[in-house]
């Protein structure tokens, strides 16, 4: 068990070093969720006056959307980096290592979960500075775990795309998956205020449960009723997308 853990640790460190080596590429991803939160709350803040909105602070309502965007960007970045490694031949050398491919996959995607915490922490600091209610320690821990889990799930999806197209030009495809999943939820308004089609999509979309789980501490109390569907949704996405990514990696070069 020690060997796989060391491999996963080394691959995670390599991915995280990238943030320090090429900060210009990482900074937009760190700033974007905060910019989105500030922008959306400035523009659509009046929406809280709609009957049935359920909260009086639109900023607190959209901060969790920024968290999920952080997860989405971090997951997509993992896929883009893998595509670059494939293009440059580094990934082929990695596949020659005497390490199970599942372990390699674990190393590739685990960096996404840590990477997602960077923009989320920045967003949280700005939000709290602007007066957003502190969600409590339990709310913060739960939000962090859900964000990390979602980042890994999006990373599995991005790895699938990278292994299929084997080029960085597929980056928009990697980004768009997470973008749709996060946006087509109750991101802007509670379910009862959404238009018919979006209400239906948001009910089917598992990320809606994740958003509710992350959001609960910011707009009210943390409850088990809102927590377990979020955990189950993340676990389900990890299981399905992880299995597909593992299958794709095992077939690579076969």
């Amino acid at each position, binding site marked *: 068990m020690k060997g796989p853990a060391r491999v996963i640790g080394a691959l995670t460190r390599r991915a995280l070093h990238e943030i320090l080596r090429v900060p210009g590429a990482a900074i937009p991803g760190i*700033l974007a969720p905060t910019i989105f939160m500030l922008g959306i709350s400035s*523009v659509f803040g009046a929406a809280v*006056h709609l009957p049935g909105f359920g909260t009086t602070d639109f900023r607190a309502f959209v901060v969790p959307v920024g968290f999920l965007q952080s997860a989405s960007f971090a997951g997509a970045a993992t896929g883009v980096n893998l595509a670059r490694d494939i293009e440059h031949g580094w990934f082929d050398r990695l596949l020659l290592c005497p390490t199970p491919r599942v372990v390699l996959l674990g190393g590739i995607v685990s960096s996404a979960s840590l990477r997602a915490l960077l923009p989320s922490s920045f967003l949280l600091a700005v939000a709290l500075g602007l007066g957003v209610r502190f969600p409590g320690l339990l709310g913060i821990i739960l939000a962090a775990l859900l964000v990390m889990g979602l980042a890994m799930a999006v990373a599995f999806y991005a790895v699938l795309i990278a292994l299929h197209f084997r080029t960085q030009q597929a980056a928009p495809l990697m980004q768009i998956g997470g973008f749709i999943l996060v946006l087509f939820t109750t991101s802007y308004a509670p379910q009862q205020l959404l238009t018919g089609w979006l209400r239906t999509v948001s009910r089917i979309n598992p990320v809606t449960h994740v958003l509710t789980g992350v959001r609960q501490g910011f707009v009210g109390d943390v409850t088990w009723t809102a927590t377990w569907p979020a955990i189950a949704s993340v676990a389900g996405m990890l299981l399905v997308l992880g299995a597909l990514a593992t299958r794709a990696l095992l077939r690579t070069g076969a």
Partner: protein
Amino acid sequence: MSRTVLALARRALRNVLRRPQFIAPLVVFPSLMLAANVGGLSRTTSLPGFPSDVHGFLDFQLAAAITQSLLLGGVSAGIAVALEIEGGFFDRLLAAPIPRIAIVLGRLAATTVIALAQVVYFLGLGLVFGAHIKAGVPGALLVAAIGAVAGTGFGALGVMLALRAKSASTVQGIFPLVFVVLFVSSAFFPRQLLESPARQIARYNPLSYLADGMRDPIVHSLRAGPALEGLAAAGGIAAVAIAFSVLALRGRLGQT
């Protein structure tokens, strides 16, 4: 000169058609955001202060999506030029016996064509999903005219950045800034409903007048005031940005 501009514009457009994955995000991301905004916030039309004569939130949001798409088009034009610099093609163009300014103008001519296509796409998308263009065909032509001029201006800003930064990833880094500038305008929501300080900034943000100029023919019949303000904002952005991109080209020529 004009033949060189046309040849370079055709080359840029061919590159776009060959690699649609570069152009797709320009319309895909704003389309998705348009869908999410309309799906999530269509009931905001009932808020006090929202213009009562607007047919629906989709009609109102179309101009925002067009503006967002045109801004992304500017970033895309900048990335294309930066990639030409990184790949050495730009230096070969400089060595060719052609007017240097044609290099910038050729790229901008292609950006104008793409901007027109973006406007047509969003108007078509809006009509398919039930939007109305109150001012009819003349209104659509006015939206296209403002969009084409503004798209050219955003393209010129992208080219200027590329000539200064010489790196595609740096130009790409401008992406979040695009949203900052757009969020502090009245593109997405009526100015009187924006929160402070966005409301105050929006008054001085040319993107507000640009978006309102494109929105007005969609939600009202043709009116001279917003149309002229939209054209003036688009023209002003284009004139200043083209002047800066030509200056950036001169600066780069001085370095080489």
